[in-house]
């Protein structure tokens, strides 16, 4: 990083922090702190829900995903617009009518305190751990690429955001997310333009896409059907995307307070609805564009030598083990393949000869095998780095090939994307702690000023917890995966509880509580005993709670009155 990059990075981050603190000055009560005084227009609701969902890893990982696996990841979002419609019909009007601060308050009104607390605990547990990971995951990538100290990077990623989140709660979250999203998109559009500009003169944007397609990267729609059978373990296809993606989006946007808090801040149900529907309109093209960056990077590396492994730190560490000589051999062989590939590529572009294409495909497979061998060696050597370099592809490309200034801006983009989701998470964790636990179980007779002070303290405590968790996560690779899986265990059941509340009026508190526990057991059994893709677990959990709820209500006729 040059000094221009440092200036751009620091000025961008400083601007966002100061802007946030300035906007938070007018907040003096918990309605402002948790719901921004219910004054936000739909545009800020839309940018808020997008900014909350899109963490730093979204921008780091998606282009790498397209580079290695093609565009099919976009199908994961196909159920999202449909979920937005259900939210607009049912969730939004009810939450607004009941004037709640958190989604779980509604569960006490509909069922009982036990069910509300159960859902709130699931939320606090899964959101706090995943926020810790959303601090650690980009921090480890930046520290590897830039050589920064991981503990300091964790602190920068998670510490500064606590400072401005405390100052003004939901209002600061909304205003900073607005600025963050503008900067993020400006940075990415500029990066996309420059990648195309870096391609050889005869390769424009559309011919780059054509090349990507010729090499299997434009596989936007896939059926998941192989040898006449649907593969339930296949993560991204149109069927799992629409059905599994629908349940996932419904759970996430309908029952996760970090999202519910965004649209509860809207000035009316109308503004909430438009905000969410616009999220449904924008999300798929946005993800398509981010993935497309990965395809363009892939095309770039067809004409230029790519690194054998995009995480250079992993290669350096591997060279310090008994795999040193094999790693060097592979590096040299990889370079030779790159040179050979370029020859055949130019030949193929001139005459479109099938034999050149066959040779290119063969060389691609050869490269893939070498990369797989490196991954195997990293795993076998037990060096404490990720055994996949997907998340490093885009940032390594940026560092190696983007001009000074833009590098600083794109590093800032990673920080801002992380801050957007972390600030919303801290605000929602604080809201649930105060509204769902402190008020009902500790003290419900606090003054407005006391509750306002307490809301800030809870934000601070959750912030500290997440940063400390991120520090402990360092060097525990499997923990990250475990936390990601944790979400898919709970989301479906949470959604099931809310769906019973909305649509099965005959089911009472006792039945839904035991149905939720039975649903959770079923999800865990499905996870451990079958190889079904995790996207399906949300649908299974939600449907199980609906079914068990009805069944238990029927078996236990007295349940409704409990």
């Amino acid at each position, binding site marked *: 990083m040059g000094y221009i990059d440092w200036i751009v990075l620091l000025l961008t981050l400083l601007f966002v922090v100061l802007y946030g603190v300035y906007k938070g000055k007018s907040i003096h009560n918990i309605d402002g702190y948790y719901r921004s005084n219910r004054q936000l227009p739909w545009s800020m609701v839309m940018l808020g829900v997008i900014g909350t969902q899109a963490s730093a890893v979204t921008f780091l990982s998606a282009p790498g995903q397209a580079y290695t696996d093609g565009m099919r990841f976009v199908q994961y979002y196909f159920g999202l*617009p449909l979920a937005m419609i259900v939210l*607009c019909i049912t969730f939004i009007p009810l939450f607004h009518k009941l004037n709640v601060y958190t989604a779980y308050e509604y569960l006490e009104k509909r069922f009982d305190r036990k069910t509300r607390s159960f859902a709130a605990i699931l939320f606090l547990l899964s959101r706090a751990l995943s926020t810790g990971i959303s601090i650690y995951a980009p921090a480890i990538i930046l520290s590897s690429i830039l050589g920064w100290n991981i503990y300091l990077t964790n602190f920068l990623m998670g510490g500064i955001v606590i400072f401005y989140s405390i100052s003004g709660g939901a209002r600061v979250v909304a205003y900073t997310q607005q600025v963050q999203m503008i900067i993020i998109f400006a940075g990415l559009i500029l990066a996309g333009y420059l990648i195309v500009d870096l391609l050889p003169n005869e390769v424009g944007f559309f011919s780059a896409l054509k090349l990507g397609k010729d090499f299997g990267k434009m596989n936007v729609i896939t059926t998941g059907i192989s040898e006449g059978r649907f593969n339930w373990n296949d993560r991204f296809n149109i069927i799992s995307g629409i059905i599994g993606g629908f349940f996932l989006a419904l759970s996430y946007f309908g029952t996760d307070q970090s999202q519910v808090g965004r649209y509860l801040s809207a000035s009316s149900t109308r503004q909430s609805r438009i905000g969410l*529907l616009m999220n449904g309109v924008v999300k798929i*093209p946005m993800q398509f564009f981010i993935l497309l960056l990965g395809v363009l990077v892939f095309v770039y590396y067809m004409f230029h030598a790519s690194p054998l492994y995009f995480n250079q730190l992993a290669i350096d560490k591997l060279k310090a083990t008994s795999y040193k000589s094999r790693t060097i051999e592979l590096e040299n062989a990889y370079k030779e393949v790159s040179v050979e590939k370029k020859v055949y590529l130019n030949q193929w572009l001139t005459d479109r000869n099938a034999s050149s294409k066959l040779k290119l495909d063969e060389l691609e497979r050869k490269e893939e095998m070498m990369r797989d061998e490196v991954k195997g060696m990293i795993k076998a050597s037990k060096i404490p780095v990720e055994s996949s370099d997907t998340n490093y592809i885009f940032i390594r490309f940026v560092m190696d090939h983007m001009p000074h200034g833009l590098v600083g801006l794109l590093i800032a983009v990673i920080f801002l994307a992380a801050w957007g989701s972390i600030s919303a998470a801290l605000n929602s964790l604080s809201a649930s702690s105060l509204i769902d636990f402190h008020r009902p179980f500790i003290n419900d007779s606090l003054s407005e000023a006391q509750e306002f002070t307490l809301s800030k303290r809870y934000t601070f405590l959750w912030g500290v917890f997440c940063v400390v968790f991120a520090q402990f996560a360092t060097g525990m690779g499997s923990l990250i995966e475990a936390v990601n899986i944790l979400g898919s265990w709970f989301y479906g059941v949470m959604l099931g509880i809310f769906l019973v509340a909305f649509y099965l009026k005959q089911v009472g508190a006792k039945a839904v509580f035991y149905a939720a526990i039975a649903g959770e057991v079923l999800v865990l059994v499905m996870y451990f005993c079958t190889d079904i893709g995790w996207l399906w677990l949300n649908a299974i959990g939600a449907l199980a709670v609906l079914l068990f709820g009805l069944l238990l209500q029927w078996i236990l006729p007295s349940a409704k009155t409990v």
Partner: protein
Amino acid sequence: MKRLDKDNLDSAPVFPTWGYWYVIIILLLVVEILIFNSISN
């Protein structure tokens, strides 16, 4: 032919205002999938 007077309009089933939005969102999704499918093939 039945006259289209005010009474008839009042009693006619009213498509909810938000229903148009929902239909537009679903149509957009279908169009996106069709475009993506043409890109894939």
